[in-house]
């Protein structure tokens, strides 16, 4: 698993209040940090392209039922007529791609790959986003607490993060997912697996965010505006929420966009190893795992989900990179 450690930008604290003029421009007019970042982002064509692809993917996942009814077939509907009964492989060349089956059919059952990719996108994106949410919530709380309070709270939280980073995460996740019962908390079937995936991926992801937030909070707490707030009688809750948190928005935003592609890869990896959502619910990793048995004869069924993962992850990475550059106060 690649880790989202990336010291590239080290997006420093974005100033609130009177922003120091980032780059002197023609008009002498105050521009908010958000505005500056947006202007930079607009000029970054590659990042914008990534953002557009991300939006399209989200829309495609949301409207999967509509799209499949227009251009495809129901996800779980088998088409035995498309399958060569002796080999269990699609009859047509290139995985049975045709005008009727845009991305071909899957082996054995002859289900429409186009529909399965779209529904797979739902699983992939949902797990990735919610897991990122879990990581961000835990990571920010722990990171801010460690950085701001220091002392034993800091050592305790930092130790926990060290231990978590020392865990063989992928192994542990597969093991954990496979020993979990099939119905839990009133959910059943794919719902349970998804909930477990979200919790496991999100839980192992928080130390990455936690470390960054801790570092930022550590340096912010020494700044004058925090002293000012404190001398005005602000309590720790006020300082944490109203003074520190707004300054942490930029790095949190950047690392959230960068942790999502990592989560997509994790979910795909777990599904590939058989610890993802259970069939017949489609997922990209699971399709690739089925493809391992047949790719020597028919590579199409491997290439399609592989490219789906690649394009999605790349789009998120491009957008996240651009966002980081745009929000970096040192950049110009």
């Amino acid at each position, binding site marked *: 698993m690649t880790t989202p450690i990336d010291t590239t930008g080290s997006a420093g604290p974005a100033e609130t209040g009177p922003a120091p003029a980032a780059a002197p421009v023609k008009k002498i007019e105050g521009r908010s940090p958000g505005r500056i970042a947006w202007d930079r982002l607009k000029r970054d064509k590659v990042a914008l392209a990534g953002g557009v692809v991300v939006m399209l993917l989200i829309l495609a996942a949301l409207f999967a039922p509509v799209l499949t009814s227009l251009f495809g077939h129901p996800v779980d509907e088998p088409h035995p007529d498309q399958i060569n009964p002796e080999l269990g492989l699609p009859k047509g060349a290139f995985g049975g791609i045709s005008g009727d089956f845009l991305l071909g059919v899957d082996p054995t059952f002859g289900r429409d790959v186009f529909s399965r990719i779209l529904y797979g996108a739902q699983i992939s994106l949902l797990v990735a986003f919610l897991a990122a949410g879990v990581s961000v919530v835990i990571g920010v709380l722990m990171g801010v607490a460690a950085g701001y309070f220091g002392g034993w709270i800091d050592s305790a939280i930092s130790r926990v993060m060290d*231990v978590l980073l020392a865990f063989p995460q992928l192994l542990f996740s597969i093991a954990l997912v496979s020993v979990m019962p099939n119905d839990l908390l009133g959910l059943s079937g794919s719902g349970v697996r998804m909930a477990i995936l979200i919790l496991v991926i999100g839980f192992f992801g928080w130390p990455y965010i936690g470390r960054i937030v801790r570092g930022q909070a550590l340096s912010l707490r020494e700044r004058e505006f925090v002293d000012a707030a404190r001398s005005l009688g602000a309590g720790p809750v006020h300082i944490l929420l109203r003074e520190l948190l707004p300054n942490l928005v930029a790095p949190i935003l950047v690392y959230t966009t960068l942790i999502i592609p990592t989560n997509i890869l994790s979910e795909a990896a777990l599904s590939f190893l058989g610890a993802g959502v259970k069939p017949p619910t489609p997922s990209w990793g699971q399709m690739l795992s089925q493809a391992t048995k047949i790719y020597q004869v028919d590579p199409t069924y491997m290439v399609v989900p592989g490219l789906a993962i690649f394009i999605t992850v790349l789009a998120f990475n491009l957008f996240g990179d651009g966002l980081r550059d745009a929000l970096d106060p040192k950049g110009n």
Partner: protein
Amino acid sequence: MLVYLIRRLVNVVAMLLVVSAVTFGIFFMVPKITGSDPALLYVGKIADKAAIEGIRHKMGLDKSIIEQYLLFLKGIFAGRDYSTGVDVTHCSAPCLGYSFKTERAVWPVLLDRLGVTTSLAFGAAVLWLVFGTATGVVSALRRRTLLDRFTMTTALAGVSLPIYFTGMLASAIFVYQLGWFPHDYVAFTDDPVAWFQNLLLPWITLAFLYAATYARLTRATLLDVLGEDYIRTARAKGLGERTVIGKHAMRSTLTPILTVFGMDLGGLIGGAVLTETTFNFRGLGYEAVAAISASDLPVIMGVTLFAGFFIILANLLVDLLYAVVDPRVRLT
């Protein structure tokens, strides 16, 4: 220095204890929650009550979880005896228990698998470290040129590709279409040439993925370092560019790369799960996946501990290396 070393070693042991306790707790508690019986896993489903009770007693499964954990720890350091009252099985010093499925001792099995995994990890590590950092350096020095853009785009694509996809793609092309590389693992001691040939494709595939991360990291760090005052000083006193980059800038560039390298290498030795599954190499990762799908708790436990050990060890080595590479670091 010595004090530092001792403190770190204590830390390593403490971390391992935590990792093992957590793993133990989870995997020996879960059967209680889900209502499955580990003793049943040893003897198989069709066994009479007496046999189950016998095995339960022999394996110590009738004891409390804390006693079981302490026995497990004792087994690692001093070996342990499994006794039914009549016959005694001795499991010598690093004892990780017996597999539920094969009834073989876990430790020798893991040692046996380690060769495959280390061969895979070290070869790939050499490749990615050399090519990754070299690409990053060239890219940073030729910033904003066509070469820089090209390599960085390739690197971003590399980061976004799942290993099992590139692995299958590479096999499909180079093994099955062109027939260039065989890839069945041959032990180095059996035939070094075949060992090298058969590992080449997995190495390249694995290294490509990691090299991408390293190229991005190297480029970003070097660019950061080149903006530092001491580099300007070095240039101002008339040092040649080669000395400035090679001697002054590279030293502090290497520090973050080492950090990531330690984590990656440790994680990889702990089980290149995806690579081994893709290329069908029977290493630690493969063993782990097999154990997980068979609910073979002692093996899962063994691999997790093993993997955690390597991650922690690699991190320790990296911290020691810091002092050698970066003159600013003092070990205290």
